[in-house]
């Protein structure tokens, strides 16, 4: 199949860029053109890393290429980051498969429309369309920049889902939720997969630990990815500070760089944990497997959530590491160990062995304390959880499984019709951008119907 693939790609540092770079080679038997942002602030084709089996193209090339030789499927990898802004005009005009990585797009959309382009009227129109049940005045909170966490209340998903032939999501809870919220819009589950990190590790774990001065015998709790408040590391520090004496072996290794707006080091110093915490700074993707091998437990906490399925967490499962996750609604079907009762918490009563430890959000510090103590002090428990995690990954989250689900989704999207635009569709999203051309050609007495020309 001839496929147009809209996604950021490395060297752009985002999870979705890395995800596409890992996935696309698995689909190389298709003819894939990857369309990257060639706007002024983007690396464009020249600055984007080449991906095996894929032709990189600038986005502006898409319309004429599609008009002259239509793609069988157009895929949009959509997340709540402004690096996805560029695909919105195409997504609403060329319906395809929208892979919804975040079920919360409000922040990126508001940033794109309000902060970057000052299109507040367009923002208001999209807000009202997305949430017709909400008072339109609510939009003013965000126009004035006061929204904050309120954005999660109004996730602004309707435009991409209503404009898609098919929407895909990586967890079953989200699929059910979207199908319920948007009846008539097809939604399909595509399993999230990651490569096997055990096959990628090159450096012995002891060498990695020595590199960062981690003492021998330490039980290393690792956190991976950009050091943002969402990873709840400050909560981990609070818990660690309370049990530091009880678990002298516990050491926190934070693998990632901290942004300027979050001074994680200040939190470490304030709690007197300098000797118990190591922050590596940015680590290239190629080295992540080495660092994964060097930790005993992975911390994959996340709040707030856009209902995303974390590839970083799955990578930890794949590495056979016990993981500590936030007890989030959309992860309810993952068998998790409740350390207070040593029982399995899961929405599937028939679920078997636990594959991780879940931390309740409204009881997180006590549960983190317990996790630090139990996991640091019980190597057998770590071993059981790690082995179960690896089995869970093999059963649910390999690249082969993800590629298989993508094939099914691509087949389906290629046969589905374009959806009809619902009533109240924002006018600025209906504009096809040819008004100026039509004005000019009309003045020359040459009427030009772009839509008709494209269809024929």
């Amino acid at each position, binding site marked *: 199949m001839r496929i147009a693939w809209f996604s950021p790609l490395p060297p752009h540092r985002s999870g979705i860029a890395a995800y596409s770079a890992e996935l696309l080679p698995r689909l190389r038997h298709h003819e894939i053109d990857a369309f990257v942002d060639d706007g002024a602030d983007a690396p464009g084709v020249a600055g984007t890393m080449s991906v095996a089996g894929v032709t990189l193209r600038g986005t502006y090339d898409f319309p004429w290429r599609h008009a002259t030789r239509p793609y069988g499927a157009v895929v949009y990898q959509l997340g709540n980051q402004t690096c996805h802004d560029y695909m919105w005009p195409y997504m609403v005009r060329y319906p395809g498969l929208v892979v919804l990585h975040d079920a919360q797009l409000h922040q990126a959309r508001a940033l794109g429309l309000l902060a970057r382009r000052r299109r507040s009227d367009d923002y208001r129109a999209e807000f009202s369309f997305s949430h017709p049940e909400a008072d339109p005045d609510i939009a003013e909170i965000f126009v004035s920049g006061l929204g*904050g966490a309120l954005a999660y209340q109004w996730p602004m998903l309707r435009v991409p889902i209503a404009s898609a032939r098919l929407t895909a999501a990586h967890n079953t809870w989200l699929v059910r939720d979207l199908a319920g919220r948007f009846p008539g819009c097809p939604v399909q589950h595509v399993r999230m997969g990651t490569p096997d990190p055990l096959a990628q590790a090159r450096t012995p774990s002891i060498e990695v630990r020595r590199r960062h001065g981690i003492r021998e015998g330490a039980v290393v709790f690792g956190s991976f990815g950009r050091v943002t408040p969402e990873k709840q590391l400050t909560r981990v520090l609070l818990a660690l500070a309370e049990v530091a004496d009880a678990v002298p072996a516990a050491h926190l290794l934070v693998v990632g760089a901290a942004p300027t707006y979050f001074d994680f080091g200040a939190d470490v110093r304030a709690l007197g944990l300098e000797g118990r915490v190591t922050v590596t700074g940015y680590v290239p993707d190629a080295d992540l497997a080495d660092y994964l091998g060097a930790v005993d437990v992975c911390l994959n906490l996340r709040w707030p959530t856009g209902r995303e399925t974390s590839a970083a967490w799955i990578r930890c499962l794949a590495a056979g590491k016990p993981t500590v996750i936030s007890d989030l609604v959309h992860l309810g079907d993952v068998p998790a160990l409740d350390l207070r009762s040593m029982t399995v918490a899961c929405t599937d009563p028939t679920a078997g062995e636990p594959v991780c430890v879940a931390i309740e959000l409204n009881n997180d510090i006590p549960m983190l304390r317990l996790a630090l103590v139990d996991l640091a002090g019980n190597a057998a428990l770590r071993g059981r959880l790690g082995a179960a995690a690896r089995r869970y990954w093999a059963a649910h989250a390999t690249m082969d499984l993800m590629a298989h689900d993508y094939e099914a989704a691509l087949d389906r999207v290629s046969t589905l019709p374009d959806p009809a635009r619902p009533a109240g569709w924002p006018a600025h999203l209906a504009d096809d951008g040819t008004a100026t051309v039509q004005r000019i050609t009309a003045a020359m007495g040459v009427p030009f119907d772009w839509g008709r020309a494209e269809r024929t």
Partner: protein
Amino acid sequence: MFFGRLLTPAEIATLKEEREAADRRYNAALTALDQAIPKLPESPHPPLACDEQRLPELNQRWQVAGDAPHGSMPRWTRWLSAPLWRLVRGRVEAEIHAALQRQSAFNSILVDHLNRNVAVHRSTREAMETTISVLRSQLDLLAVFHSRLVEYLQQVTPYVDTKDRDETLAGLLLGLSTGLSSGLHSITDEFRRQLEAMQAREQRYVAAVDELRTSIGSVQQTGLMLKREVERLLAAPGAAGAARAGGAAGSGPATPVPATGVTAVPSAAPMADTVNAYKYVGFENKFRGSEVDIRARQMTYVDVFRGASDVLDLGCGRGELLALLKERGIPARGLDINHEMVEACLSLGLDAREGDAIAYLESLPDASLGGLIALQVVEHFAPAYLVRFLDVAFHKLRPGARIVLETLNPSCWVAFFEAYIRDITHAWPLHPETLKYLVVASGFQRVDVRMMSPYPEAAKLQHLSGATQQSPLALVGLASTFNDNVNKLNALMFSYLDYAVVAERL
């Protein structure tokens, strides 16, 4: 410095007092400064110009000797005798000439001096004029400067006030928006965090409840099967003897076990046999409402059986519901004990048969029905028959199938007295909680009691609305008590005429 906490009234008063005192001092100083602006003196005039009027004449006439003609002696010399004149003349003339010479020299010096000082006078006057002019202009500028200085000082207060106001307002707005945004974010986040934790827990509880339901259903089903087997064993020929034999086998005296009565199908409604079928059709036509009304009410049940098949409409009557189910593509058949009703259904092309409910159900294989609905039927069953009916129905329904039992609501006075006892074929009034309990006890789960047919508001007892807040207290109290009693009576007498128990076999 004060924004970290609220100011006390005393502190506010002190700040205001200090501010007003500073204002007063400032204004007094400004007024004094304004008044101290010096008045400009009249400028001095330059000296008069040098008087040069006679200077030309002086320059012409300064020479008095040399040109005087001889012989033109003064008149007084005439009276001198000529010889004498001749004798002194030379001497006089010499003396005179010398004097005139000296006078001319003096005149020359004097006129020359005057001529020289004219230029000095002129330049001195010009210098003085220039100096006075410069001084004047400088004084004018100084006066302007003074005025501007006072004006400037007059602007200081509004400038400082507005500048302070601007900065304070901007600062306040910034602080307010930052604080508001931060607070809003934190509160929202906290609520969402709590909500997320609750939802995560709830969905596990829901799953656990579902699991419990399944387990309970399984236990109930096992119990019911055991009960049925016991009943069958007891009903089998020789069972009593076997039981007795069993009892005899024990050490104690044999206990008689009733061998009959347990499995015997109780009569559905003792009166049914005695009422002529055609008369009951007529009764229904008179009191149950028109077919259109009944059809509208029955529409609410069609959704319950969406996607089902093999639905049995027990007490199908004239077949209104069967027709609705047929229209929606839901395969269904009817059963009625009344021959005329069945004939009415058949005449409409509907699948219906005549028979007793339990007898018919027992003739079906277990788990063969996809749904069962009995509208206004169970009140016709005697209690023992009803219990037996529910037991049998449970076994004949497939897992996942639903049962709907609609009946009159005897907990509503008007329903009981105006509807229930009106029909002579009603065997036993069923309170909603009683029927719900029987359904649960028969093994059904997800049991829901839906109240139907609300009594019209206009027909209920009405509130007393004349009393207002201006009315005497006693009257207000009386009206309030009256209205409370109206509410209680309405709740007892005029609530819902019907209800339905909807349940599922898991």
